[in-house]
């Protein structure tokens, strides 16, 4: 009897996730939810981490959910450009093992966003997608890297257009 039918479709789970987010919001995010009316296409606005070079930043992220979700990971990318060693500046592609090999069905969109948020503070310059800033980190030029990040965090800030 207990939840006798488990849908193969991810829609119910996504709705549950959305409800969970709304009653228990994620501190890393400003907003999260379906873009327009498509349940399989979400967007999120991420906040910068206080006390880091990303402080005060706002980034729009684009989340595409595959039909095999949660068995396969959502495709997430930064729409707002971000200066980060593991994020491609132009395409917004994120290099995070969680989104590729180590994905597990127990992760939700919210927890994945938390992981991306944590990536902001724990970058891995050894597998870079943004070589320029990764090189600054590798050479130990903390000041240079920090100020570059600060520059882009300030100039590429996402601003909500609709409201």
């Amino acid at each position, binding site marked *: 009897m*207990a939840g006798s039918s488990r*849908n193969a479709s991810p829609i119910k789970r996504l709705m549950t996730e959305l409800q969970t987010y709304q009653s228990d919001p994620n501190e890393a995010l400003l907003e999260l939810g379906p873009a327009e009316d498509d349940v399989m296409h979400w967007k999120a606005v991420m906040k910068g981490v206080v006390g880091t070079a990303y402080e005060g930043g706002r980034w729009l992220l684009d989340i595409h959910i595959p039909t095999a979700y949660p068995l396969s990971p959502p495709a997430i990318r930064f729409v707002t450009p971000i200066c980060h060693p593991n994020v491609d500046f132009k395409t917004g592609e994120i290099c995070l093992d969680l989104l590729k090999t180590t994905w597990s069905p127990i992760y939700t969109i919210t927890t994945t966003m938390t992981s991306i948020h944590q990536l902001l503070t724990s970058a891995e310059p050894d597998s870079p997608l943004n070589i320029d800033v990764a090189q600054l980190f590798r050479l130990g030029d903390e000041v240079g890297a920090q100020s570059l990040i600060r520059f882009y965090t300030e100039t590429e800030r996402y601003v909500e257009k609709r409201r």
Partner: protein
Amino acid sequence: MDTTFDLPDSTDWLSTTLPAFEPLEAALRCEVCKEFLSNPVITSCSHTFCSICIRRCIATDGRCPSCKSACSSDKLTPNIAVREVVMRFQEARPKALEMARAEKEAQSRSGKKRKLDETDIEDGEPVRQTRSRQTRSKGRHSQSTDPIEVADSEDGDDEFLPEGMAKCPICNTTMKEEQVFNHLDVCPEQNASQGRSTRSSRTKNTFPNPLQRRQKDPSPPPTRLSQLNYALLKEGPLRKKLQEIGIPNWGNKDLLKRRHIEWLNIYNSNCDADEGVRKTKRQLVKELEEWENTQGGKAETKENKMMKKDFDGSGYAKSHKTEFDDLISKARAKRATPKPEETKPSQPEVDATQPPKVNESRDPEPTPHNGSDPYPSQPTQIPIADNPRNPYENNESALATIRAKVAAANQTGSTLATLPSEPSLSENDQVSSHDIGIANPLGSPARKVPMFALPGQPVRDLDSSGSTH
């Protein structure tokens, strides 16, 4: 984002006086589907999931979603204790949640904090109690008494039999005591229930109660299906196998394989279900159909929107004949009416033909041009041109016809500003302008040169219209 939908969810407790129930409920939910565990099974690494969820996960990457250790689906064992807890919690949940919410409202209205300790215990109790003792939860929850009442009434029925009467222990038919033994030899249900006690055959249809179930003999559990070696199996035998099982067997080998895996997941998870709630094969096939529509061969993908190679054109035409006939008659009606503007938007890709049509539309007598004269005659003269770009190249008679038409059109419609320049073109010029028209089919309207070009496109159009006439 609107929140019009309402799905029960562990965070419901956060806004009540019992936020401590949030982690409790989260623990009773499957980590994969985030719903209450259904047919929970425990893995070899001691994690518990819904049977169908973990089976799908293992079929995908062979690992436990929680700890990433290697898992195999034949090591999964039903977790009966958890099943019981989840079931009882779900029964207790609505009322407990309602009370906790009401209390929060009362609190916020009065504005003063009350001690929560008492209510905490009261609401927490049923969950713990149902685990340990069935009878105590009976008094607290009216819903949960139902299964037990069924069992009680069964005993009552036996007592209320009129004197001298007895029941067949197999089929429960009431009869005289002395008839029972004779009846037993011919009892129709004997074979079906394999001579088991009354209770087992009767409780089959009642609400499942795992505690009660232990008292009767369990029926042999259905055997789980095992995976096939898809790599060794060729497409034909695999297709045959699917047919034997009784599930759809269309599609390519990859789809057959995926469908078979999903079938195993559905079927085997049904084996993990409690005996009373096990689904019939028909229901399982329906579930597979659902999978087919969302993730299998009927899922909407980009490729599926294109026409398939083996698309049955004639069959489609037959089944939609009335619609086609309707469209054809509509199109004919449009052609019959003297309104060339109507036909213009229907062929927007042929830009070169548009300027003449605009002119013709201002023609006082457009009907003979459009309707009867040129259309049936031209296709017979020019069946199919070798060069589609210059269909009139070697067909002087057709060119002459067109020139005559154009001249006629120009004479009647000479009010237009651009027209006077056109009749001055000689025959030699026409050939060259023809070429220009091809090179610049989208030439600027001011030049009006393409007007004489009338290249391949209209001919094909006329050809088709000629055949319908």
